[in-house]
């Protein structure tokens, strides 16, 4: 069955084209059926080829046609199918299908129903091309494709100019990373002579030694692309703003799939990163720093979607940490479980927003537990998995990451401690969300409960968030063996208990309100620090001052075209002389004659003056 994997990206692509061209004549049922059905079909095909692959775990490579060929460079449209690809494809098509199904109800009232599904299907197709690509150039095509779809979907409600602003920000900030990645591709091609991922790794191992300069530079450039796409420091500022898009879009693109593309890129090129230990350390440090920073910020947010957005940044930070310490399998595993529970949380928040007249502020919600039971249980399970409570999906993956970070020599213990702090904060902010939204006094009444097309995906994702931790992902042939050895039991006990402490703290703070930290929060230092966290460590302000304002200042300076002034002067002098000289060409014969005679007299006089003795 694996021969037909090229159909998997093709079906959503065709459906997207059909929706773009024929949307005027389609009814809402056909649009929804086409949009969700195409991804469902892709999921089914992925399932079939997955079963086939698990029976015979051999990587499979298929070339459809040669894309371009110039001198010794050739790129083909070819797909590579192994365990890692299978995991990514399953997440994209599986979670993607559930989100599409959810969208058919969520977007029901929207005027641009067909446009929405056209973009969403195109996104799925591009994302599939990204993860299935056999060479980095095709991967880059998918990479840019998902970027464009993200831009289109963030700015989906374009009548509001703030949404367009958010879309542009998302596009421009990721573009900074993409430029670095393109440079990385150039460097890899010029030094290795190929962009085919498998060959590239072989060549790199032949040419380079561990710790050489070139692989470090190449890996850092690739990391630049990954950092942009996956919203890590210092290019994370676009993701919270990207929440301007419809909530299912946030679930699919900005939580489950696209933002994890950076993690996938690093995992896919791990052969190169293993040659550059210093680049891997940068990955780990960036990851844990981002994770902590975003967790602190999430604590202070009041917009339900922004809490989840910062939580996504924080969780992807954990994945980067895993990649940085060489725990490839754990990183990809966390990618998968995170896709389950974060999609669940986003869809749950979408259900709340849908039923609560587009209310985003958690302090205006409250007491929703009895009125929206399906959503309540979704949030409960999702938050438990996010906080990594024992036996949920998030527990298994995050635990693996922390334990493997701990085993790293020298600075491993510090990474582990920072990771624990992050886990504590994660538990606090996720259960703060649950307690504030679902318990306490009801501030807003929901006007409806979710229908089956929303409830079904929520239940499926609940199930996945609960049992996802018991899946074994078939990547043992893709990645080298992870660090072995078992840390002491107390390390494991601490890792398990920290999230529980976090939940307890959240309970005391936001449910029973026994723990009163108001004096601390309202003190001068406390309120300043809180405000500093709330605005995301003022990174936006920093960039505004560092880049945006100087750019505007330079633009304002150049707007008057001061450089052009010199050339304009030359032009005006020429025009002036021309106007003056053309006076003499007036067509008056007698005037010509008079000037000739006058000139003659002048010349004769001069001649006589200069040589009087000649006369």
């Amino acid at each position, binding site marked *: 069955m694996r021969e037909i994997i090229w159909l998997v990206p093709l079906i959503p692509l065709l459906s997207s084209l059909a929706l773009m061209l024929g949307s005027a004549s389609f009814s809402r049922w056909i649009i929804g059926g086409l949009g969700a059905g195409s991804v469902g079909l892709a999921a089914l095909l992925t399932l079939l080829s997955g079963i086939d692959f698990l029976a015979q775990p051999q990587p499979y490579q298929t070339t459809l046609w040669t894309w371009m060929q110039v001198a010794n460079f050739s790129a083909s449209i070819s797909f590579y199918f192994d365990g890692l690809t299978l995991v990514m494809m399953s997440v994209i098509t599986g979670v993607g299908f559930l989100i599409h199904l959810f969208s058919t109800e969520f977007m029901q009232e929207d005027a641009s129903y067909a446009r929405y599904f056209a973009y969403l299907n195109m996104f799925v197709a591009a994302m599939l091309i990204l993860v299935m690509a056999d060479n980095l150039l095709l991967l880059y095509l998918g990479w840019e494709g998902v970027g464009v779809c993200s831009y289109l979907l963030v700015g989906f409600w374009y009548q509001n100019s703030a949404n367009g602003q958010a879309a542009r920000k998302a596009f421009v900030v990721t573009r900074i990373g993409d430029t670095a990645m393109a440079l990385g591709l150039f460097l890899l091609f010029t030094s290795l002579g190929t962009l085919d991922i498998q060959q590239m790794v072989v060549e790199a191992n032949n040419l380079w030694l561990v710790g050489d300069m070139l692989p470090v530079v190449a890996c850092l450039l690739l990391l630049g692309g990954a950092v942009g796409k996956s919203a890590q420091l210092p290019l994370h500022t676009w993701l919270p703003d990207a929440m301007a898009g419809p909530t299912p879009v946030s679930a699919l693109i900005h939580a489950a799939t696209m933002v994890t593309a950076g993690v996938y890129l690093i995992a896919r090129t791990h052969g190169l990163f293993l040659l550059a230990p210093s680049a891997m350390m940068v990955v780990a440090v960036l990851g844990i720093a981002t994770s902590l920073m975003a967790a602190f910020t999430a604590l202070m947010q009041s917009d339900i979607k922004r809490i989840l957005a910062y939580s996504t940044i924080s969780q992807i930070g954990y994945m980067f940490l895993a990649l940085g310490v060489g725990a490839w399998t754990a990183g990809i595993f966390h990618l998968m479980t995170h896709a389950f529970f974060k999609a669940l949380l986003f869809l749950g928040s979408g259900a709340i927003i849908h039923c609560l007249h587009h209310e985003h502020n958690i302090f205006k919600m409250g007491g929703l537990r009895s009125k929206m039971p399906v959503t309540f249980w979704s949030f409960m399970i999702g938050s438990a998995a996010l906080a990594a409570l024992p036996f949920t999906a998030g527990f298994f993956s995050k635990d693996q990451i922390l334990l493997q970070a701990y085993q790293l020599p020298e600075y491993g213990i510090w990474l582990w401690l920072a990771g624990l702090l992050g886990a504590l904060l994660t538990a606090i902010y996720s259960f703060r969300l649950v307690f504030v939204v679902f318990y306490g006094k009801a501030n807003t009444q929901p006007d409806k409960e979710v229908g089956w097309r929303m409830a079904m995906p929520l239940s499926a994702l609940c199930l996945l968030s609960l049992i996802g931790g018991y899946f074994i992902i078939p990547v043992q042939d893709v990645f080298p063996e992870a660090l072995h050895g078992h840390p002491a039991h107390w390390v494991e006990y601490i890792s398990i208990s920290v999230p529980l402490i976090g939940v307890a703290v959240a309970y005391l703070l936001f449910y029973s309100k026994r723990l009163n930290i108001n004096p601390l929060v309202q003190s001068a230092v406390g309120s300043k620090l809180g405000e500093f966290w709330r605005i995301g460590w003022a990174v936006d302000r920093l960039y505004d001052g560092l880049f945006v304002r100087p750019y505007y200042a330079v633009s304002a300076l150049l707007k008057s075209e001061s450089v052009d002034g010199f050339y304009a002067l030359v032009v005006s002098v020429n025009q002036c002389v021309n106007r003056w000289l*053309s*006076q*003499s*060409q*007036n*067509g*008056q*014969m*007698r005037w010509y*004659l*008079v000037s000739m*005679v006058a000139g003659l007299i002048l010349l004769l006089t001069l001649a006589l003056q200069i040589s009087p003795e000649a006369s």
Partner: protein
Amino acid sequence: MDGLNIPLNHILLLSSLLFCIGMLGLMIRRNIIFILMSLEVMLNAAALAFVAAGAYWGQPDGQVVFLLILSVAAAEVAVGLGLVLQVQRRFKSLDMDSANRMRG
């Protein structure tokens, strides 16, 4: 040739006087007929200088050039009068300035 012995200077003076009168006419008059006439005066002034110089040096060249100038003047008048007719027909006027179409 003995009785009439005019110094060369005088003839040349007359010739340049005539030339200047012609040129002055050229500069001042606007009527094309008069311009042509002024041109004739100038040509004849030059021819007179040639004849006088030829006689002075005892050479036939001066008279040869006079004949050449005479024929050139005839041709010029023939062409010039033809142009005058055309100008009259097109612009309904013999004023040379009215034929100016340049907007300099």
